[in-house]
């Protein structure tokens, strides 16, 4: 158990107190989200012509761009989040227990944003449900996109189950202190609860965590998502077995960065120095560094094999990639993060919360840029490059760029709302495992 001296009551602070800061944050986020929703409405009206996408080939553009890049970025955050929380539960990494639920909530929020991106990306969102369901038994045999949707849905269900199970425990014990107006919701969440289930649930959660960890490299960001690209024979930039590990490290980096940002905000807003401790942030920063290092290493692998004596199409792509200013910028961000993480490991005084926060933003910007570049540069340098219009050119339009701000705002709103409804730090994190039973008795009596 972590050495935090927080009381169970502390985790209810956000539910009980709502400051002006909350309203400002909500207002700003809602305003941005509304602007984007209007832009999206415009896109629905005009068609995808309001993006800067175009046909590859004689068309001189790329047909997938920021929307797909942002889609895999959000999916990455989600998958990284759930892996993080599963690891905490499976390996008993109690130091990070206070952020386990944040990671799970992030998974739910990010998966929803990824889902929104699917809708935003398609030319005929009105047909999504009917067309996909009608043909599902056939397409699931051949279309990597359908595998994606299947797996994402599976993980959404797993995460939601996970979250619901662990929430029951907390809500039963804290319900009497939580707001009356949510009573029906709490009643629904805790329906049929008996004390006997605690142990069973703990075991179920453990097995779910095991399932997630085992399946992650196979099915999630290490498998199905990169296969969306890596299985196509004609885009050298996307091919290769390195895509799986590369996607997975990006997912973990982005998720840890996301968790740091959210926890930082929570700590700042609710004076949670004793719940979300410096010690925990140090640890998260170190993990961020580790995955950034792996990411850099995998990028190097790709670059070296792509420029040394690669086949023509691959080397064309690789040279283009390493000379793209945005790519250089993204790699510089990651390099700065690495430098900081190393420095703070060597000299503890270098560490500061603000620096870790900045590093997290850099990581998120770096991974988003990398993802978007991955998508459209891969398309810009196909094997069949005879066309004069290939490589095409692309820079996201305003409507596209707004979607990033819009989805980030929606995700923020999701968190702003959820902190008011359920405890975002689980009770287990503030009570000791050892005196678990006594404590529990106390709680219920209280």
């Amino acid at each position, binding site marked *: 158990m972590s050495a935090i001296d927080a009381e169970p009551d502390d985790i209810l602070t956000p539910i009980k107190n709502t400051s002006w800061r909350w309203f400002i944050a909500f207002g700003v986020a809602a305003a941005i989200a509304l602007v984007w929703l209007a832009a999206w409405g415009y896109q629905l009206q*005009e*068609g*995808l*012509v*309001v*993006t*800067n*996408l*175009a*046909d*590859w*080939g*004689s*068309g*001189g*553009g790329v*047909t*997938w761009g920021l929307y797909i890049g942002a889609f895999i970025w959000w999916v990455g955050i989600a998958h990284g989040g759930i892996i993080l929380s599963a690891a905490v539960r499976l390996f008993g990494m109690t130091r990070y227990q206070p952020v386990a639920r944040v990671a799970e909530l992030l998974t739910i929020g990010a998966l929803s944003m990824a889902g929104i991106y699917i809708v935003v*990306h*398609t*030319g*005929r*969102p009105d*047909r*999504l449900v*009917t*067309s*996909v369901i*009608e*043909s599902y*038994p*056939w*397409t699931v045999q*051949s*279309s*990597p*996109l*359908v595998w994606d*949707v299947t797996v994402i849905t599976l993980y959404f269900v797993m995460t939601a189950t996970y979250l619901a199970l662990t929430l029951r425990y907390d809500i039963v014990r804290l319900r009497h202190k939580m707001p009356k107006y949510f009573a029906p919701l709490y009643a629904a969440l805790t329906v049929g609860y008996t004390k006997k289930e605690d142990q069973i649930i703990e075991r179920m959660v453990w097995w779910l965590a095991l399932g997630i960890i085992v399946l992650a490299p196979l099915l999630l960001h290490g498998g199905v998502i990169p296969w969306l690209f890596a299985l*196509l*024979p*004609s*885009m050298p930039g996307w091919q290769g077995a390195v895509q799986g590990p590369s996607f997975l490290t990006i997912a973990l980096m982005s998720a840890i960065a996301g968790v740091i940002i959210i926890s930082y905000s929570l700590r700042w807003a609710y004076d949670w120095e004793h719940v979300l401790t410096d010690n925990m942030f140090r640890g998260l920063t170190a993990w961020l560094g580790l995955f950034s290092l792996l990411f850099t290493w995998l990028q190097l692998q790709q670059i070296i094999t792509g420029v040394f004596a690669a086949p*023509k*199409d691959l080397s064309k792509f690789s040279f283009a990639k390493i000379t793209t200013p945005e790519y250089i910028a993204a790699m510089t961000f990651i390099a700065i993060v690495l430098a900081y993480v190393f420095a703070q490991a060597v000299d503890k005084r270098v560490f500061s919360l603000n620096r870790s926060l900045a590093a997290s933003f850099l990581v998120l910007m770096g991974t988003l840029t990398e993802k978007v570049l991955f998508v459209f540069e891969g*398309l810009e340098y*196909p*094997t*069949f490059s*005879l*066309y*004069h*219009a*290939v490589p*095409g*050119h692309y820079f996201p*339009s305003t409507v596209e760029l707004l979607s990033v701000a819009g989805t980030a705002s929606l995700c923020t709103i999701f968190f702003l709302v959820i902190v008011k409804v359920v405890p975002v730090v689980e009770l287990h994190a503030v009570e000791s495992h050892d005196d678990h039973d006594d404590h529990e008795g106390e709680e219920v009596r209280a």
Partner: protein
Amino acid sequence: MSTDESSESDEPRHPYETDESFHPMGKEWEDEMRAELEETEYDADLGMQMARDAQRLVAGEISEEEFYAEYHDDVEDEFEADERPIFDDLDGVDLDEVGDDQSMLESLQDVDLSGDDVSRRSMMKKMGAAGLFLGYSAYATHENEQDDEIPEQVSGVRPQGEDEREHRWGMVIDLDRCDGCLSCVAGCINENGTSTGANWMYVFAYEDDQSGQRNFLVRPCQHCSNAPCAKVCPVRARHTREKDGLVLTNYETCIGCRYCQVACPYGVNYFQWGEPDVEMGRLEFLDETPAEVQEMDAGDGFEARAGTYAEEGSDRHEALSEANDHVYDARGWWADSRPPTGVMGKCTMCPSRQDGHTDNPKGTVACMNACDETGMSAIHFGDMDAEIGDDYDRGVRYLERRKNLNPSPTEKNEADPEEDGFGWEEEGSTPQPRDDIYTQEDWENPPAPHDTSQLSTFKLLEDLGTEPNITYIGNEPGPDDEQVDPSTVDDIPGYEDIQRDIQWPVTVKDNRKHHLDYGAGGPPEDTESEEA
């Protein structure tokens, strides 16, 4: 054919048979089935036998007809006349709709047991429950794997096998004859009403890196027999028509995800980013919804039941022909002419023509007609499965002829062109030149004779395993070859130059991105009017 006969034969047995258990789920499962059957009043042996043979049906060891013939009487005897012979009913069940176990179950549910109010459960028992079930689940899987009978709206990704399919449409394009006049591009736009820059047929000059020689590449969709675009489509809107290998998009179900475009190695797809330039009302088509067209009677041959054909004389065919329809194919799918907003389009190889309900004959495509009109005849559309002398042999015939006009140096010395007639020999008959395609004079003064060595042909990116159905005559572009910058050449026609031949309000453009670019300047129409 019965099981006994086959087990005596020397033919390699199916693994299910050599195994102790015939069922893929193993002996235990099989025993359970038998136990269940034993409980019913019906013949367990018969049930198990049927199941076993159903597996063999899956393995292709016996045919469907044999399976029916073998069991029809048995089943009738076993399940008594007043229960309505199951197989007669099954005959009525549309097997096209039987794609997976689920729909099979549903079909079985539809079987009316002569007014008896029997629960589904007891009905199943009466059918020799487990045995038949086992067999039919296998049968259904078989259907599914073979992809030869597909439920409506969900088509396959590969053409049928050579024996089953009707055609394999493709082209032989003689690049040596192409002079880059772009008539085919105009022909395609006129036929399909595609929007600005969506050049389904795209012709461009490229320079040989080594020799600096200028060549043309004529690039429609390759209608790949192993099309990656069809495989990846998440809704199977992009599909391969089993009967003739055409790779089409169902404009009604496409969700516009553009994965097909990403997966296609050739860059032949053009998405409908905004409103189409040509309104639907201006296209020629049967004024019914796709659902209504699909409802229409399509004749009662087997093909009609498989849902992919509309027999001549059938209601659907008549209606489509009367309307000179150019947006539906024979299945009643909206898959021809330009796509609607938000949907993927590309060269279709004119399916409404190939289904024979337009004024233009089957076996022709608009780009070829346009090319022929200029007298160049570089495009030769036809059935690539055809033998010379068959219908629609234009492509293979042309290729053969060109090969014979390009004998290898040794062959050249041996052959006597006078004696060999048209350059090939066929057993038992002398092939005749076909007036509909070639004039007699053409044959005697063949166009573009080559005095060089062997004919060089290629398919684009064949190594990728896409099995393209366009065969090019000419030299394959090398890896360093590049399209000549269209803006720098004025000795060949540019895309603007064919504008006068276009019947639609469509601006002919080469680079579509320039047209689409959605900068501060506002919607593309504005840019357009400035330029026009």
